Every structure is written in structure tokens, then in C-alpha cells.
């Protein structure tokens, strides 16, 4: 069965965004080590899950990178390559309101979250499934116990208040640490599985 992997940027104090979804606290000066880690992670997946709310921002951002096609520096070339991956990878958008998808390589899932995710997990495919956010959508996936692997990118920043992904849990949840790796930019990636 395919796994659903969560890749999320999180602050030391456990937030994934500022109170209004701000991302200005995140560490962006990534070295080659973490870029390789993210690319390797992405190479094992072939489907991206998106909550409806973040889809416009996500698709819009990577589309604009492709349209600009600025490859004048190593950084920009890498960014362009990554944008292509993001746009070329099939995406499934979870929505109760949209009638049809207006984005490239994107289908809609409108049914019960657990059923739809399990349907995707049961599809015959070599690649796994990944989700990057947003906070509300990820909260629902966690609450319904649908995440098989957690990749928490712990940024060297405390933000005090903001958006959470674990706040909807009724009980404590134990995870099993698979690996912990630190990167030049100060991010620590902790890889967990549900216990």
C-alpha cells in the first residue's frame, strides 16, 4: 500500500505558520544538503495532496516560477527544476465546494476524507503520496490518523503563537523516531512514524 507522508516546516515551539499564516519566520537559506534531502524525498512520491485553501497559492507560486523561467544562477535553476516537479506531479485537491479543477495535473476529491485518502493509498503505484499543508487540512489528516510518515522540518525559530497541526487531537499521540538529521541552515528534520 502507498504511504501518505507529511513534509512540514515547523517552529521550535510547534507552529506551522504565524497567526495569519505568515511564513516569514521560516529559514530559507538552504544549503545543498537539505535541498538534496527534499529532492530525494520528492523522488519517492508521485502524488501531492492539497487542501483546497492552499491550492491557489501553491499552484500559482510554482506556475509563476516556470513562466518566468529564470535560470541565471544555480539557485534559480534549482528552483525552476523543483517548480517543474511540483507542477508535473499529479495533485489531488480536497474540496467540498469546487465543481471542477482549474489547475493543471489536478483532480478533485470531494468525498469523505478517510475514504478518499484510503482509495489513493490502495491505488496500484510505486510512488507514495505527500502532503505539505495547509494547517487545517493537515490537522484533519492527523486527527483521522491518515499520516504514515512525519517529516518535521524543525526550524531554528520560536514564533510564540500561530497555526497548529496537532491541536485537534483528543489524546496524546506517541510517535516512533526513525531518523533525525541536522542541516547547515540550522533546520533539523525529524522523521517519525505512528507508533
Amino acid at each position: 500500500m502507498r504511504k501518505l507522508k507529511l513534509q512540514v516546516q515547523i517552529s521550535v515551539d510547534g507552529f506551522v505558520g504565524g497567526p495569519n499564516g505568515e511564513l516569514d519566520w521560516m529559514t530559507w537559506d538552504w544549503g545543498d544538503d537539505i535541498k538534496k534531502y527534499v529532492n530525494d524525498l520528492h523522488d519517492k512520491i508521485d502524488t501531492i495532496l492539497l487542501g483546497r485553501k492552499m491550492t491557489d497559492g501553491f499552484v500559482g507560486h510554482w506556475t509563476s516560477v516556470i513562466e518566468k523561467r529564470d535560470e541565471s544562477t544555480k539557485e534559480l535553476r534549482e528552483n525552476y527544476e523543483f517548480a517543474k516537479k511540483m507542477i508535473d506531479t499529479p495533485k489531488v485537491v480536497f474540496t467540498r465546494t469546487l465543481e471542477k479543477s482549474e489547475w493543471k495535473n489536478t483532480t478533485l476529491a470531494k468525498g469523505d476524507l478517510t475514504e478518499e485518502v484510503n482509495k489513493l493509498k490502495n491505488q496500484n503505484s510505486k510512488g507514495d503520496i505527500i502532503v505539505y499543508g495547509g494547517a487545517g487540512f493537515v490537522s484533519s489528516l492527523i486527527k483521522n490518523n491518515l499520516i504514515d510518515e512525519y517529516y518535521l522540518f524543525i526550524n531554528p525559530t520560536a514564533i510564540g503563537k500561530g497555526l497548529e497541526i496537532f491541536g485537534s487531537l483528543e489524546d496524546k499521540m506517541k510517535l516512533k523516531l526513525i531518523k533525525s538529521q541536522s542541516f547547515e541552515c540550522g533546520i533539523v528534520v525529524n522523521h517519525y512514524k505512528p507508533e
Partner: protein
Amino acid sequence: MLNEVPKIPTQSGKSRPRGRKLKLQMQMSLDGFVSTGSNDEQKWVTWAWEEIKDDVLDLLDSCDTHVIGRKLAVDYIPHWQNTFAKSDDPMYEVAKRIVAMKKYVFTKTLKTSEWNNTDLLKGDLTEEINNLKNQSGKDILVVGGSSFVSELIEKDLIDELHFYLNPVVIGKGESIFSSLNKFKKINLKKVTKYDCGIVLLVYENNF
């Protein structure tokens, strides 16, 4: 007369002691909480003393002074005093070090200290901490409670943060960063992974 150490100017123009560091050690959940609430018995913390022991003792050995909030102190100081009386207790090595450290309890209400090797500090938090940092000696330890630590963070007094990140989500609880009004970048210094699933994250405050 206190032994003065050189002070260096900071970006904000205020002079900050270059002297002893104030080091925080806390257990933390994956969702950033240090406690489930006021009656927390830390049952959510992964118990793996033998694995983390060397790192905890190293930190204690780097400190000869311990600052404590009044609310924590009333149970904490007697607890370690009692543990120190039992040389076969698994935590005896911790007790020995805490008992030996010079302790300062921050309080606005207590009149006199009833504990050994412990003085009360009643002045402005920033001034009192900077006074301690300017004295010569080893570093200064703080381990809680969460409201006292929150105030130290709000006033940007902590120099090094040692978080034992437990592989557990507790959903709600007390945070030590909620007093921040804007985000605060810190420098990753060291990461240690233990078999029990705890990850020790050590950060420096670069002001």
C-alpha cells in the same frame, strides 16, 4: 565586590554581559509544550534516564548557580534535598549537583529563604540576572517553571537552550514562548538522537 567581566555592545546598543551564560534545560513535546498544565506529573515524558544521563550531567557540571522561580522552588528544592539523602536513588547524581549549586529563588512574596544554600532575589529580573552573569564562575542553570522561563524568554535573558524533544504530541499545555511578540531566531548548536526516540536540540541565542 563582584568580579566584573568585560561587556560587549549588542546590536540594540545595550550592553550585554559577556560573562556567564544562562542555560535552559526543558523536556518538550513535539507540539512545543513543556507541561500539560499546573498539575503536570510529566507522565508524557519518555523515561530513558540511562540514555540521556551523560548529557544531563554534563550540563549540570557546566553550571554552579541555579535560578528558580518561586512556584517551582517550593517543591523542587526539598525534592532534590530528599533525593540527596538517598545515595542509592537513580537520580542521586543529579541531586548531588543541584544541592551543591548556589541557588537563587525569584520571588515577590517570600520574606526569607528556608532552604540551604539558597538566597532570594526580589529585584528587577533583568538586573538580577545580569548581575549574576557578571559574577565570575561557571554558568547558570534554569529548568522551570514555565511561567518563570516565559518571563526570561520575554526579556531575552537566556543564552543557551537545551530541549529534550520527546516523540509525543500532547495536544495542549503550557508553552514557554507565548510571550513573544515577534518571531525569534536561534542558532542550532548540537543535535543528539537517543534510541528511546528523544532528540536533544541545543540552541544558542545570538541576540
